[in-house]
């Protein structure tokens, strides 16, 4: 057998054997193996993509939550401010109202007092007038008799009046 001259028999068997190997392996090994590898790679890719998506979604959710929280805070602040404003206004109003009411009441009281006072003065006047009349009457009566007695009487009446 020669070293560098290919022998026909060996070429024949090699061709036959290698082709048989090739076809058996293609049918029973390479196709299923390559398909499985592709499938696995696809599933790994899919899993990675899904993880990435989930991460993104999580970030979005977080951002959204943050936004909601921010909005809620703002809302709260507005509500508080409004409430404060309202309460301040109410207090202010109440104060004004109370002032007004008080003023009115004082006014009324003053009016009443004035009226009472007027009434009392009128009464006093009436009384004085009456007393004057009585005094005058008694004076007139005594006057007729005695001058001295007359003045004594007047004094007496005046004493009486003072007592009154």
């Amino acid at each position, binding site marked *: *057998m020669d*070293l560098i001259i290919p022998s*026909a028999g060996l070429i024949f068997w090699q061709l036959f054997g290698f082709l048989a190997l090739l076809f058996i*392996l293609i049918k*029973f090994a390479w196709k299923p193996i*390559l398909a499985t590898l592709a499938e696995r790679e696809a599933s790994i890719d899919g899993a990675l993509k899904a993880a990435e998506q989930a991460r993104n979604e999580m970030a979005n959710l977080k951002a959204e939550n943050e936004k909601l929280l921010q909005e809620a805070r703002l809302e709260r602040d507005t509500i508080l401010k409004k409430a404060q404003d309202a309460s301040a206004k109410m207090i202010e109003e109440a104060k004004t109202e109370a002032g007004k009411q008080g003023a009115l009441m004082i006014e009324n009281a003053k009016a009443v007092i004035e009226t009472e006072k007027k009434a009392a003065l009128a009464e006093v006047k009436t009384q004085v007038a009456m007393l004057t009349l009585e005094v005058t009457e008694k004076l007139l009566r005594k006057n007729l008799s005695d001058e001295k007695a007359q003045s004594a009487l007047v004094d007496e009446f005046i004493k009486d009046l003072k007592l009154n």
Partner: protein
Amino acid sequence: MTRKFLVLSLLLSAFLLSFSGATFAAGAETEEGKEDPTGFIMHHIKDSHEWHFFNIGHTHITLPLPVITYASDRGLEFYKSTDFQNPETHKFGKEYAHNGIYIDEHEHLGRVDGGSIIDFSLTKNVAMMLIVIALVLFMVLSAAGHYKKHGAVAPKGAASLVEPIVIFVRDEIAHKAIGPKYMKFVPYLLTLFFFIWIGNLLGLLPGAANLTGNIAVTFTLAMLTFIIVNVNGNKDYWKHVFATPGVPVALLPIIVVVEFIGLFTKPFALMVRLFVAITAGHIVILAFIALVFIFESYAIGVVSTLMVTFINMIELLVATIQAYVFTLFTAMYIGGAVAEHHHDDHH
């Protein structure tokens, strides 16, 4: 890992040294009856009609192999190798002709009447090829079985050995060298890689045949690559060969001849590279062993063993590199044949 290789290589070389040397040397006697201490090297490198393992004393331990012949006037005939040799010395020769057919001392088949006859024998290399095929089949089919059984899960057992290679050949060799149409060629490249790789590795075992270092084997593989490349060659590829773009018309006849020769030099280079790399490795290992029988010295034996161990480790590397290179170049030639050229930025 390195340690395992070292131990393995030491074992291999010890085994080689203890058996093959002594026996091949004994097996290769010159005509004067003197022992030729290097004759076993060529005997190992070449193909043979019988599988010779070793001698015990003068007893040859061999595996007789079938001899199959075809002649147009005689048809197919089946014999066994022992029909054509001296039962004692296991020598082939014209004097041991059987049924009008003989195998001469160079193991060429011939007819006593001088007619033509073709040798389809299941030689040592064919037997080796069957072993390699069986091993590859076993390995790859068990891997495929794992996927069939468990579906698209992480590899285990044989699959974890085969899978990285499959992915490497697919992504690093086929995809990079061929381009977008690579998937069609991956099965061929994978088969090529596994056959050559396992062939190279098994060839390193003592007593094994030099299968991937045989020119007929590398010729067949290169021829298959040649066929696949040229069957898949697209318009651009053929245009490149027969009407090379960008070349002046006057130069075209020369360039076309060069390009046409180039079609054949590519597979020729594939054939020669694998043949030479593997055969040379075997010759170097056996030459170091032969030193022992030339010098007949224990000191040389120790040194030779160390050298053989060293070369064996290199050969383990070469076995893989050559399988990779053959596959890679095949992929590159296919890539060149199927690529869509854009001549504006090319040449």
